[in-house]
């Protein structure tokens, strides 16, 4: 430090001269960019492939007609689209309140220094990493058979709720934790109870974050096929669900069904339905981003 300060001007000029970015820096930069490219290229190839294959069949018959395994030109996926809507809405109704309430408990009420709560925390992280097929087995054994709910919309929704619950809890906790402590202190110092503080200050401030996490969790649920394979969605369904105890199928399963047909026309049909599923997913993600930007707060 002191040598620089006392050095003659020419020497300082020499020391400060820009020698260009070292080779190693540039190499590392390219390596990082290459890593990023893997994801982007994969997505681009996937989109191009699906769109070029499915576009010709992306016609109103796809959402107006019921599936058929004999007439690919007349086949549609209305029962799968309606089934997905039934299952996802029911899933949202079940898992969002439960997940948000669990998150509130962990963030606002639980004593983090207690051993029990630390174990709960670690286990929620673990649950988020459990393969979805395992939830399918759980759903089949406990919800479909032991609770005798059968192969119905409610069974699927309960199973998917269990599957995404850890994600909802974790993202809601992060949103709740992001609300500054000073807001809670301000509320409590006015004589508000803890419940009033949580319901009138913390939750409203955390809603954008919670909503974003919830939509991303539901986006995961909407694309799940594995657990539902075990839960009866695989059967050939040519009617829309009419209630929670109705049989059903969903888009990923219908795609799976068509793909496994040998005739080329069904492959195209599957690609067309993939476009719809992707569009729904992108819409949900877009809505999550919109919510995040629209309600983003600066403290």
């Amino acid at each position, binding site marked *: 430090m002191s040598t620089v300060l006392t050095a003659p001007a020419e020497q300082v000029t020499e020391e400060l001269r820009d020698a260009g970015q070292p080779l190693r820096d540039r190499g590392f930069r390219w390596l990082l960019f290459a890593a990023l490219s893997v994801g982007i290229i994969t997505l681009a190839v996937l989109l191009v492939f699906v769109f070029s294959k499915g576009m010709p069949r992306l016609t109103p018959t796809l959402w107006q007609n019921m599936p058929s395994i004999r007439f690919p030109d007349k086949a549609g996926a209305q029962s799968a689209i309606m089934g997905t809507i039934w299952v996802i809405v029911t899933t949202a109704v079940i898992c969002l309140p439960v997940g948000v309430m669990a998150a509130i408990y962990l963030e606002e009420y639980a004593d983090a220094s207690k051993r029990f709560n630390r174990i709960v925390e670690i286990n929620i992280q673990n649950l988020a990493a459990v393969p979805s097929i395992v939830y399918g087995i759980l759903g089949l054994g406990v919800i479909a058979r032991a609770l005798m709910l059968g192969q119905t919309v409610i069974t699927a929704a309960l199973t998917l709720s269990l599957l995404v619950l850890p994600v909802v809890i974790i993202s809601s906790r992060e949103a709740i934790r992001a609300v500054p402590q000073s807001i809670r202190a301000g509320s409590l*110092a006015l004589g508000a*109870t803890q419940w009033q503080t949580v319901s009138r200050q913390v939750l409203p401030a955390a809603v954008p974050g919670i909503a974003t996490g919830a939509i991303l969790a539901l986006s995961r649920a909407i694309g799940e096929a594995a657990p539902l394979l075990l839960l009866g969605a695989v059967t050939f369904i040519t009617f829309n669900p009419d209630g929670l105890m109705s049989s059903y199928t969903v888009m990923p399963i219908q795609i799976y069904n068509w793909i496994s047909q040998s005739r080329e026309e069904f492959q195209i049909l599957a690609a067309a339905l993939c476009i719809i599923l992707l569009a729904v997913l992108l819409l949900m993600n877009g809505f999550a981003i919109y919510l995040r930007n629209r309600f983003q707060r600066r403290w």
Partner: protein
Amino acid sequence: MTTTALAPRPATIGGRVADPTMEMRGVDVYYGDYQAVRDIDLPIARHEITAFIGPSGCGKSTLLRAFNRMNDLIPGARVTGEVLYRGVDIYAPEVDPIEVRRRVGMVFQKPNPFPKSIYDNIAYGPRVLGTSKKDLDDIVEQSLTRAALWDEVKGKLDSSGMALSGGQQQRLCIARCIAVNPDVILMDEPCASLDPIATAKIEDLMRELAAEYTIVIVTHNMQQATRVSDRTAFFTADVDDAGVRHGRLVEFAATPELFGSPKDPRTEGYISGRFG
């Protein structure tokens, strides 16, 4: 925590207070095993401003939060001894901390308006207390008027409280505090983040509020203490034999007396800028 040798209890607690609104008797505050503040006896006089001064880390803010049980919110924090509010120990098991905080309000170091409109910031306290809707407009106007903010915000009550300047935000927080009509107002360095003009406004406001409220203020600014307070308590951090710091009350007296003729050499050293 074992008892360790410390300087003797301050003998120079002046400023005898008749009929104090609040009073600490033998109060210690712990964070876990750490005794942050040791053995405080201190009365808070009604409708006066009591200032807490002292070097950083001497436990002034910790002690302030013991007056309305805000320390309860910190895991591991514990208060022993008696903190009396009108003769009742607020740490007694049958006392509800919520009720204490309704009577002993608080203004924080950093302005912390709620992310809501100016109106809703003020109305929040009365609402959680169950005040009926038709009275809210009056309460909001009165509170903002008493906090000397009404003229600046009366046309934009629906805009966000967070859009105000720092000084306005702090007056909003004071208005929010008096909207629930507390008996005592605790202020934790309320001007620490404000410029001199905003500070002057808050100080004027405090003098006006002292007619109706009992105020305790923590400040690092000794001029502020001399300008606004009626009595001053000087704290310092004593280091015990084990090298652990404990906040202690050194001297408590009427403000002119404490600054004019301090009885304890440590007080004199601090106010004349020799240490701290």
